[in-house]
């Protein structure tokens, strides 16, 4: 299944974002090696040059490191991953809050909506 891309942003950035999330969610655990550029390009149905560029941007943030012969390794730093997960959570909350503000909810209402429905969804699962 080819990956889905939005029309308004460069493909390499969207590709990098998908791989970043795989690292943050633990699909690619800390210290493990990710698949090769070719394999990933094949899976995503993107140009290998694009995938290369995407991985390079992740290297520049320290999330991946390249080893000459063995490929690309996810950072072993749990701290870095934890920090990035918190940043990601903040981005999700902010974007959700923004949408609720657009819908006309106040700050206090939004907080109570969050506690109300997060409780409900746990109940349903059980």
């Amino acid at each position, binding site marked *: 299944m*080819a990956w889905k891309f939005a*029309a308004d*942003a*460069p*493909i390499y950035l969207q590709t990098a974002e998908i791989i970043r999330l795989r690292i943050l969610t633990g699909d690619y655990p800390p210290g493990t090696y990710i698949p090769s550029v070719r394999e990933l390009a*094949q899976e995503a*149905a993107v*140009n290998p*040059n694009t995938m290369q560029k995407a991985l390079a941007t992740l290297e520049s943030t320290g999330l991946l490191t390249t080893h000459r012969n063995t490929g690309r390794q996810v950072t072993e730093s749990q701290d870095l991953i934890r920090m990035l997960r918190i940043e990601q959570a903040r981005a999700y909350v902010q974007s959700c809050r923004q949408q609720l503000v657009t819908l006309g909810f106040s700050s206090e209402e939004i907080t109570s909506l969050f506690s109300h429905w997060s409780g409900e969804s746990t109940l349903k699962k059980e």
Partner: protein
Amino acid sequence: MDSFKHPVLQCRGLNKSYGRHHVIKDLDLELSPGRIVGLVGPNGAGKTTLIKLICSLLTAQSGQILIGGHPVGAGSKALVSYLPERTYLADWMKVADALELFADFYADFDREKALDMLARLSVDPKARFKTLSKGTREKVQLVLVMSRKALLYVLDEPIGGVDPAARDYILSTILTNYNEEGTILISTHLISDVETVLDEAIFLKDGQIVLHKSVDEIRQEEGKSVDELFREVFKC
């Protein structure tokens, strides 16, 4: 291999007319190695004419085309692997005959690779072309073209007449099988289908190049996909 020091393709001041109909107008183009390039434009823009000039099937009235630094001509056919719009393989032929034909014609043809790809498609080499569906024929033709180790692959509408699943197969074949020193030029109307596999896009309009940029540059600068930009530039 001094070819790799030169751009894969250079066109300079290219002109082509059919009678009084001026199809390619003073066209300049340069492609570097290892790129996948989309050639897009509305019907009648001159895509197929440009491709035929590059493949030395037509002769330009003026201007120059160099393939890996060599002028186009009989010699350059060894460097260019061409997938025409329509198949030229005869109905009575078996798939294995077509492999023979390619092995005879092209020193860079890798028969093992072709057989391997055919096996993955579950195409029997003993099958005759007349027994194959249109889509399967197109796939076989693509397998033949991509099994050469060429400097430049020129694919004229490779995904035109096939179903979406076959389209995915064809695109992944293109992605996995090109050699990294080579460049692939794909002409197509179906931009949104190929956009993610392209490095660069060339917009051809009335025989001239109106835009030649990397896909990500287009998305970054315009904030829209190549497909959307195409619809804007070529709005009827």
